């Protein structure tokens, strides 16, 4: 086994091309798929860019997601990191058996079958938003009119959060997910959201309705604090991610007209197209991040107990050893096996919901507006390099 020989690098975020991960990641993946990474706080850890190593580490119980063990790979993310330290119910940042307990309470609500049952309602929500766009006429910001409201409304209805309060939680979650927010801003936004959802949880306990939060309140022994944490996690995770896939995915299709036509005209392609867009765009562009609980040897590299590993799934999803011509968007390829939803026990709880939303929303949009096109030059589309979830800030379109 070899000690770290290559010099440590820092994690890049700047992109040359809006759809491709920062260029250095591809070089490093070729040279050394597990390489030393210098963390902004002085920690010496690792960066994983190869598919096989990424998948192995994400599935390995010797790596932890506990926030108190992790170093953040980019300085700006420190505030977000610290704001979620040990909150009850934030099982994304817990190891088994705590993680198992929470996740088990929720998986029954997110099965493939449950998500199928939501299809008619998601279709209706999509139709309503397309109608509203048609009435308003172009040019319009697709993020505001379509990409953000559809997943927001879906997760609100599922959880039982009043959609009329969306300005509040959309604002809070964008502060939480902005890399430019200060620790004070992040903590204030988190507190605001916890206060709001804490009230909601108490209300649902008193007057249950037919929704997930009421169900959990009635059927489990979760405390109000835990239930508030879970609801906060689901609300944030449930709308920002899918929203960015819808916005960025549409932008990518607009830049690749032949691929767009395939998604619009061939219902058979849609399922593959969603997986391929997930792979190609990898909106969770930083991490996931893990810490070794003991010394682990992988591919001749010794990762010592306590060292942080940043697993760039964005780079792993472009690994030519796993995907042929990885830098090409090819909506007809079977792209399953991508790591966009993570891997291992934390693999995205909401992935079947996200898939259902995307499978409905992309083709519906493209069929309603066959002439859909950018309303500004491509260079003017503002990219979310400054956010935890990558995407477009705005997507001005017309038809």
């Amino acid at each position, binding site marked *: 086994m070899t000690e770290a020989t290559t010099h440590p690098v820092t994690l890049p975020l700047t992109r040359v091309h809006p759809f491709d991960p920062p260029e250095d990641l591809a070089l490093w993946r070729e040279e050394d798929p597990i390489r030393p990474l210098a963390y902004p706080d002085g920690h010496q850890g690792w960066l994983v860019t190869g598919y*096989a190593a990424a*998948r*192995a580490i*994400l*599935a*390995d*119980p010797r790596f932890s997601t506990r926030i108190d063990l992790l170093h953040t790979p980019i300085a700006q993310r420190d505030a977000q990191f610290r704001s979620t330290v040990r909150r009850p119910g934030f099982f994304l940042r817990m190891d088994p058996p705590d993680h198992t307990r929470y*996740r*088990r*309470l*929720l*998986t*029954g*609500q*997110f*099965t*493939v*079958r449950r998500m199928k049952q939501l299809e008619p309602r998601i279709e209706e929500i999509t139709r309503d938003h397309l109608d509203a766009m048609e009435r308003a006429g172009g040019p319009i910001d697709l993020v505001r009119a379509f990409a953000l409201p559809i997943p927001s409304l879906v997760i609100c209805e599922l959880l039982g959060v009043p959609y009329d309060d969306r300005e509040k939680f959309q604002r809070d979650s964008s502060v939480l997910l902005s890399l430019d927010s200060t620790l004070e801003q992040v903590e204030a936004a988190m507190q605001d959201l916890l206060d709001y959802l804490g009230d909601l949880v108490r209300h649902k306990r008193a007057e249950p309705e037919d929704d997930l939060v009421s169900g959990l309140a009635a059927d489990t022994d979760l405390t109000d604090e835990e239930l508030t944490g879970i609801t906060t996690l689901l609300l944030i995770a449930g709308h920002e991610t899918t929203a960015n896939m819808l916005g960025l995915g549409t932008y990518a299709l607009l830049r690749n007209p032949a691929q767009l036509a395939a998604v619009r005209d061939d219902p058979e392609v849609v399922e593959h197209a969603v997986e391929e867009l997930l792979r190609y765009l990898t909106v969770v562009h930083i991490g996931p991040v893990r810490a070794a609980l003991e010394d682990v040897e992988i591919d001749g590299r010794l990762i010592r107990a306590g060292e942080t590993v940043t697993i760039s799934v964005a780079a792993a999803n472009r690994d030519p050893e796993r995907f042929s011509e990885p830098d090409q968007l090819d909506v007809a390829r079977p792209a*399953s*096996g991508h790591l966009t*939803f*993570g*891997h*291992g*026990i934390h*693999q*995205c*709880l909401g*992935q*079947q919901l996200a*898939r259902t939303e995307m499978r409905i929303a992309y083709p519906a949009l493209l069929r309603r507006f066959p002439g859909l096109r950018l309303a500004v030059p491509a260079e003017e589309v503002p990219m979310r390099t400054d956010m935890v979830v990558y995407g477009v800030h705005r997507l001005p379109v017309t038809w």
Partner: protein
Amino acid sequence: MRIIADTGRCIGAGMCVLALGEVFDQSEDDGTVVLLDAEPPASMAGAVRRAVQLCPSGALSIAETSGGDQDAAGGVKGNGD
């Protein structure tokens, strides 16, 4: 081939159901895996292997029964761990 499902490890991600709904289902209660057909016909071997490969938690494995296909010595572990 015989599929072995460890519901203790399953995290209910549903990847198996998505990949091969004829063989895998999820429980209504806690979303963990339910085998609809624990010994699928040899014609499904490739699809079963792909589904087992996709499982994120290592909850699925395959035991080759006698007379099964030759390419799996002993048994296939699903996960990369």
